[in-house]
């Protein structure tokens, strides 16, 4: 059913690396990062420390592994918020299309889109206090209109189709049609969008952590590592390069995965492949 393509293969490969690192870190970590060992600080790349050590003597590889957990968890839950609230909202708006409810939902979407997301995310985390949880909420809120808009748009065109008409003739309610017929046909669009929002979530989490509004120390996070590295760029550029590459690698992987999935899952393309 899914035809593999280059983007998809590279995407999966790139995404597996941070995912594996995060998973392994739950069971095994090369070094203990809660322990500071100043005499061991700023050690460069070696066999014992493949990415070297930071200004507190902590192993960078372990920091990246545990930091991957934070990034992935924050972005994943933020996407979850967007899907769980946005998709039902979009489907509901499409079911009562043309009505005042539909109009209201869409205007609400436009309004959220108009807000400079970063400023509001900073405002939210500043109000509720900086933490990974509040960063999730701040990023998640802006995922809601994205999923609402995309699922409404796609659902609207589905509602015009004959198989939906026959379901209506069979006496199914709008709610049942949305769940049983519309939603399964939206899946491919939603999966691709979720991948894109996931990558944006990783970037947003890194940004919030960088200015100190994301995960709090001692929880390692890629953004925080960059913030710590900034003052030491002249002394040890490696401290900034390593977490930066981790972020770029993950975001690139997710974007490639999104592109690859779009090509692989698009029903129109799939039809042409069969022919």
């Amino acid at each position, binding site marked *: 059913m899914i035809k593999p393509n280059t983007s998809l293969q590279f995407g999966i490969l790139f995404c597996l690396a941070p995912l594996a690192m995060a998973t392994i870190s739950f069971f095994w970590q090369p070094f203990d990062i809660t322990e500071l060992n100043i005499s061991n600080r700023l050690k460069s790349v070696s066999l014992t420390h493949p990415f070297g050590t930071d200004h507190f003597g902590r192993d960078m590889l372990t920091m990246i592994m545990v930091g991957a957990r934070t990034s992935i968890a924050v972005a994943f839950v933020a996407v979850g918020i967007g899907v769980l609230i946005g998709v039902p909202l979009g489907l509901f708006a499409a079911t009562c299309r043309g009505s005042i409810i539909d109009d209201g939902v869409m*205007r609400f979407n436009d309004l959220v889109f108009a807000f400079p997301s970063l400023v509001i995310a900073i405002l939210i985390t500043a109000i509720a206090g900086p933490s990974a949880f509040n960063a999730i909420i701040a990023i998640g809120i802006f995922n809601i209109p994205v999923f609402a808009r995309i699922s409404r748009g796609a659902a609207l065109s589905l509602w015009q189709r004959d198989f939906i008409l026959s379901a209506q003739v069979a006496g199914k309610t709008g709610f049942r049609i949305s769940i049983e017929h519309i939603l399964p046909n939206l899946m491919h669009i939603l999966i691709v969008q979720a991948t894109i929002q996931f990558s944006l979530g990783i970037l947003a989490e890194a940004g919030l952590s960088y200015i100190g509004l994301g995960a709090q120390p001692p929880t390692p996070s890629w953004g925080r590592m960059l913030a710590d590295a900034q003052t030491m760029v002249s002394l040890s550029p490696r401290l900034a390069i390593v977490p930066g590459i981790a972020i770029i690698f993950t975001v690139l992987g997710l974007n490639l995965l999104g592109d690859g999935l779009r090509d692989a899952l698009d029903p129109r393309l799939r039809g042409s492949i069969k022919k």
Partner: protein
Amino acid sequence: MINYFFRRLFTFVLSLALASIVIFSLVEIAPGDPASFMLGINAQADTIAALRAELGLDQPKLSRYLAWISGMLTGDFGISYTYRTNVTEMVGDRLWVSLPLAIYALFLSTVIAIPTGVYAAAKRGKTGDFTVISATQIGIAIPNFWFAIILVGIFAIKLQWFSAGGFSGWQNGMLNGITSLTLPALALALPQAAILSRIMRSALIETLGEDYIRTARAKGLSSWQTIWGHALRNALIPVLTIIGLQFSFLLAGAIIIEQVFYLPGLGRLVFQAITQRDLIVVESVVMLLVFAVILVNFIVDIAYMLVDPRLRQDSI
């Protein structure tokens, strides 16, 4: 057409009104009383009460909201709690950093994106196209603040061509100002350029598939002549839309970059005001940024209507 304009104008005003209510409520529920924050932990209760009265914080919420809105409409943003100066003046000063920075970044992003996008579209499917596409994929994945740190490391610390941060001000000459904004603008521009380049490419590829392009080619024009004389102008419409939207993003999205370079811009002002519980500054600057975004969206929609005759019919 008139009908569409007024409907769009109505949603524009409605969005602004709703946005102001959301911002006001968000700031209202923020914990921490500005008066006790300003006076410190040893302040007497009656001193705090007096300051609250002076700042107008003891007024009912509705009348404070209305006072804030009517003030903003007349260009009076109130008095900052922390700095005791006029917020309008503070915003004015900061705009002289944020606005040139956004324009500079937008300029760089456009200058990079349009030629690369056109080149990729012209070489569609060939090595040149693949190179541009790969470069834009990486460009989109780079966090702009990380790129900023790397730029500082190379051009400020190693080569010492630029200063690592701060803003020398425009009074020391245009060149000085532009020099201190170069690295931040470059850091902001790179991811934007990657996005814009992809949009330029796909818009041009779509235009190149049109019938009138085939006609132009059949007349004997070369492929570059066709792109330059016929396709580019039409393909630029979606690109201009994105440029418009990027401008408002750059104005509001520069917070982190302003932190990296210690630039006294609007974003840094909001960030500091949030941590200092300077609610009036937070409200006013966030509202101003939201206003800029909504205004740009409105202008883009109206410009579309003027450019595209199909949108002028009242049925739409």
